[in-house]
């Protein structure tokens, strides 16, 4: 049933999809982590206060709705918003800012993945900050640390170690849910596999090969995470 000759032509043809997947995943993972660090820190520190409620709402929204729906709203819904805004801008002779709501499939995917992943990262980071014992802050203050010094020298190194396993898992999940980009017509790995399979009717071989590409990415990511976790391991923290 498996056709080896077809297999050999499959790898290079899937490779372009793999490459597009990587170029979605990497910026989305980095941006997501950055969003998560900022949002998680603000929510964990309850400071500045006026930002906490809106950031909580952001996290609930992205954790509480289906990722596919988020992609649809962003890719199909925003242009509709642009249509409404267009006459408003035109009437006032304003620059055509409404155009930013027409997102390419690639831009919509990276944006939504980063926002979604950032919401999850922020939960891990918030939890990690909340788990730091009060005495750690008291000791730092007693030694004459300023708040900024306490943040960089005590909170960051402890919270990072506690949050890292969760954040690493989230990145592995991101690699897998990046496949959803195909439903907003983005030709990444899954989208490419779909096209190839539809024209060759070799669904088993094609998706099996796509699966191997994903397995390669998740295994590599998990390996890097574990290496980092080990490099910074400290007795009494996590698996250290």
């Amino acid at each position, binding site marked *: 049933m498996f056709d080896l000759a077809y297999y050999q032509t499959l790898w290079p043809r899937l490779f372009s999809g793999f490459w597009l997947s990587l170029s979605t995943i990497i910026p989305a993972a980095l941006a997501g982590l950055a969003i998560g660090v900022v949002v998680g820190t603000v929510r964990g520190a309850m400071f500045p206060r006026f930002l906490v409620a809106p950031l909580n709402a952001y996290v609930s929204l992205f954790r509480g709705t289906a990722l596919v729906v988020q992609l649809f709203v962003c890719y199909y819904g925003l242009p509709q918003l642009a249509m409404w805004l267009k006459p408003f801008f035109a009437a006032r002779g304003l620059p055509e800012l409404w155009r930013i709501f027409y997102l390419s499939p690639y831009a919509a995917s990276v944006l939504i993945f980063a926002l979604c992943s950032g919401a999850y990262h922020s939960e891990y980071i918030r939890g990690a900050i909340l788990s730091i*014992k009060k*005495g*750690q802050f*008291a*000791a*730092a*203050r*007693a*030694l*004459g*640390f*300023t708040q900024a*010094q306490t943040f960089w*020298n*005590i909170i960051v*190194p*402890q919270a990072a*170690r506690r949050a890292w396993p969760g954040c690493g898992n989230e990145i592995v999940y991101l690699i897998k849910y990046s496949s959803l980009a195909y439903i907003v017509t983005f030709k990444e790995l899954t989208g490419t596999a779909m096209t190839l399979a539809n024209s060759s009717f070799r669904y088993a071989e094609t998706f099996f090969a796509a699966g191997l590409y994903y397995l390669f990415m998740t295994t590599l990511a998990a390996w890097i995470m574990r290496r980092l976790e080990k490099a910074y391991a*400290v*007795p*009494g*923290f996590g698996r250290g």
Partner: protein
Amino acid sequence: MNAPAQPVLEVRNLSKSLGGKLILDDVSLTLNKGELKVLIGPSGGGKSTLLQCVHYLHRPDRGDVFLEGRSAAEMGRRNICAFRQEIGMIFQDFNLFDHLDAENNVAIALRKVKGLAKAAALARARAELDRVGLADKADLFPAQLSGGQKQRVSIARALAMDPKVMLLDEPTSALDPDLIGEVLNVVADLARGGMTMLMATHQIGFARRLTREIIFMENGRIIETGRPDDLLAPASESRAAAFCAKLTELLGH
């Protein structure tokens, strides 16, 4: 003891309310250079709150703290951080930084707060660990140390900052009985070495041997002060003596 007494620390009329309850009520005391004074009193009497207010970890509602004549109440936020550097604080539950080994626990404030280079800070840290008898534990993490060792590291950490005064909040009450001695020995060495200290403790025997003044606190007020032999003599009929008798009965020593 011929030189005129120089006050290192002066606490004047401190009051503090927490959660709508008056916890410290007009507390004043003076520590001269090289003096060790011991705070005793029932649980909830306000000993910890007093030490934290002296250190400005809690800002007092009223009153002031003077370190070598400088008023803490008049300091801005920056200067309060500098003020805290000069007062060492020892906590009941050690509060070592969990992510740092013993020598870095001692070195981090030297580097980040005092601005020492890493090598100099680590050298000083090892010297302080040696002073508390932990030279061979420099690269162990808090999770790998016993309670007594953790408390000695925290004392080394405070000493490294060259404090003018040390505040000790029941440094042995989280320890197993067989580990109390090693920490009290370090404190006794400091006292003999002329460190100025204010210490809350339930170790009455230890207090009797080392201090010339016991301060008895209850309900946020200083009720009695005096030399241990006078204050704690059974015939004195002081509240402190009654409290110590009860403590001895409970703990059996």
